[in-house]
């Protein structure tokens, strides 16, 4: 069991949980992920390790509530526990040793790019982080990123930082500064757009992929992605790949495999919660 020791709301649907996982906290490296199972009967889902405190024996998970399993996770309070955490999985990020890196995070992807930015900074690399969201309340981890270098914040509606997409800001950086590598994590359309921006100049671009996964050890093949025409498993061959070689259309398509099921599961969860809310009232009336 992995007790939640800290819980913070980062944006309307993104929650940060700091949980006990002593072994993983000691050995994890930036870019790696864990497979999490909230409780008995719960789904196994992959989550990037956003941070770790080896001394305290805790890791940080940043979770966007989109389906039943993630809603169950973010509903956990401090003192409650996650049943299973397995990892650390996947290859750690290959960190540059010098130069200038741009870390681009879209939405919850900012939490994935954040440990990479820190590791780059610690390795002596100059880091520019670009993060964005729909509006101010969706911007996250800005102060944390600032500790690793410059930060450009973008919002779609211009309510905070500059108005526009992260790719607009990235295009400006690419045009005005020398860039040795770009690390981009976010929704598939964002990562694809970043890849297209950096492709003409051949700037090395790394994306971290989060396809559907069951075991996380290469056993199921559910996370297969096409990279450079070859089938690769994101769990054991990745999760990071050369953005210029990834078949993003296929990735986006495969991510939609269970869309209908997820909607039904979410609906069931809402009904069950509503039922729970109703039950005490009914008892009281009787």
């Amino acid at each position, binding site marked *: 069991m992995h007790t939640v020791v800290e819980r913070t709301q980062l944006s309307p649907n993104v929650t940060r949980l700091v949980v006990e996982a002593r072994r993983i906290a000691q050995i994890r490296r930036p870019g790696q992920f864990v497979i999490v199972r909230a409780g008995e009967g719960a789904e196994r889902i992959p989550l990037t390790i956003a941070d770790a405190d080896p001394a305290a024996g805790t890791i940080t998970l940043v979770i966007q509530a989109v389906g039943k399993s993630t809603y169950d996770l973010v509903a956990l309070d401090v003192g409650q526990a996650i049943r299973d955490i397995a990892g650390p999985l996947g290859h750690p990020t290959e960190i540059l040793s010098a130069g200038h890196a741009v870390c681009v995070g879209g939405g919850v992807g900012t939490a994935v790019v954040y440990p990479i930015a820190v590791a780059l900074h610690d390795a002596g690399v100059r880091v520019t982080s670009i993060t964005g969201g729909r509006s101010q309340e969706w911007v996250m981890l800005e102060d944390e990123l600032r500790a690793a270098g410059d930060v450009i914040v973008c919002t779609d509606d211009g309510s905070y930082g500059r108005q526009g997409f992260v790719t607009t800001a990235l295009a400006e950086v690419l045009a005005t500064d020398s860039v040795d590598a770009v690390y981009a994590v976010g929704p598939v359309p964002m990562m694809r757009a970043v890849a297209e921006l950096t492709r003409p100049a051949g700037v090395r671009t790394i994306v971290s992929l989060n396809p559907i996964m069951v075991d996380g050890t290469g056993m*199921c093949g559910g996370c297969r992605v096409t990279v450079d025409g070859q089938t690769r498993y994101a769990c054991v061959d990745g999760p990071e790949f050369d953005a210029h070689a990834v078949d993003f259309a296929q990735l986006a398509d495969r991510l939609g495999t269970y869309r209908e099921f997820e909607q039904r599961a979410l609906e069931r969860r809402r009904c069950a919660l509503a039922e729970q809310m109703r039950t005490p009232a009914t008892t009281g009336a009787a």
Partner: protein
Amino acid sequence: MDERPTGAGDYPELSFDHAPGERAPISPKERMTIERQHMPEQPADLRAHNFAEVNLGFDHQLAILEAERCLQCRNPACIDGCPVRVNIPRFIDLLARGDLRAAANSLLDDNALPCVTGRVCPQETQCEGRCLRGKKGDPVAIGYLERFVADWASHNPATADGRRPATGKRVAVVGSGPAGLTCAGELAKRGHAVTVFEAFHAPGGVLIYGIPEFRLPKGVVRQEIERLAGLGVEIVPNAIVGKTYTLDELRSMFDAVFVAVGAGLPIFMDVPGENLKGVYSANEYLTRVNLMGAYLPDSDTPVLDGQRVVVVGGGNVAMDAVRTARRLGAQDAIIVYRRGRDELPARREEVHHAEQEGIRFELLAAPVEVVGENGWVAGLRCVRMELGEPDESGRRRPRPILGSEFTIAADLVVVAIGTRSNPLLTATATGLTVNEWGYIETDGAGMTSLLGVFAGGDIVRGAATVILAMGDGKRAAAAIDAYLAGELPAAVTTEALEVGAAG
């Protein structure tokens, strides 16, 4: 259909009214007239829509009647046919005498997981394949008898576990599948402290994620694991050796290590369209259904339930997948296999059960393309095959017939054509020798290139059966025991294995 069929044939002359501990007074001639008893099973039309176990098991009367068919050969060939060398005539004799406790003890001495093997072993190519009675007629139903005795033992657990005094030695077992569990049980009986590392959240390996409920109920597996826990075996879930711990670390923390991580990575067909939505590896499909419980109505884990499901392959895994699809509501559940019916590598009983459940067999056909529509599977394009000259495995090599392509409409394709080695552990273990396919190399005693590190099961031999993995686990346990006692593992012979097994 009758839920409790009695034995095949009518035996008014047989009396079971003899004193306990004695054999029924039957003449050898009478014994030869007893026909093989049928396994009671759920009717096919009913079971094709549920996940309850197909085979219902012998009752005591059927078991004793079947046990009386055993000729108690002086040189029993059945034992040689068994990868873990169960003393088959001994437990059958004890069963026939009505001494179930002694029969169970005898069986459990030889076999750590008899509830499992009694259900999933390919008996027809092992013990029953060697049975003298099979030369003329049907062999003794050894698997059914094993299951009967083992299930009885599960419901009537013994109080004494026969453990030897603690040796103070610690052994790590990597993987909690059949090889790992067997090795752990044997080592615990010998007084060693055993810790099993399992990558998943639940132990059992292929017994839990792979073999479906209707063939091997998970409750049965959990009981077998609880029996091992009762012997003091500690199981650590969510521990991925190669990631959470390295083999080097385990070597420094334990006196010996047994690596039994299974084969792991699924092989795909390498045809166009394989990454369409609706193409699963059998590993993924079965793991979703079995380990994650996706067949249950309120499951958090989804599985696609196709109306027309094509499973590619002809082994036990393919049969498990296609029968699972049927139970999940597939109107058409089809096996596509490139050779003929006689070449199907699956257990005979599985093929028989599949046919009874209305599974269609598209034999002598090989996939050439997964046909898609809007990103989803719409069909499987195949080519007709014919059998040519025998290949190195002795089976006739299939070859495509030019221009014979045809398409099977399908909304789900499950690929069950085998696995290859998973490098997660081996790639991170310094000095561990693997062969060109990534499988771990071992000596005759099961020791790897690293002193004190042994290996067995699919990560050594490639995809094989539960019982072969168990045989490896048992042999490795004897070798580890000798190694921990300061003896050279090369001293471990078949004889030592048998002596060790009796202890």
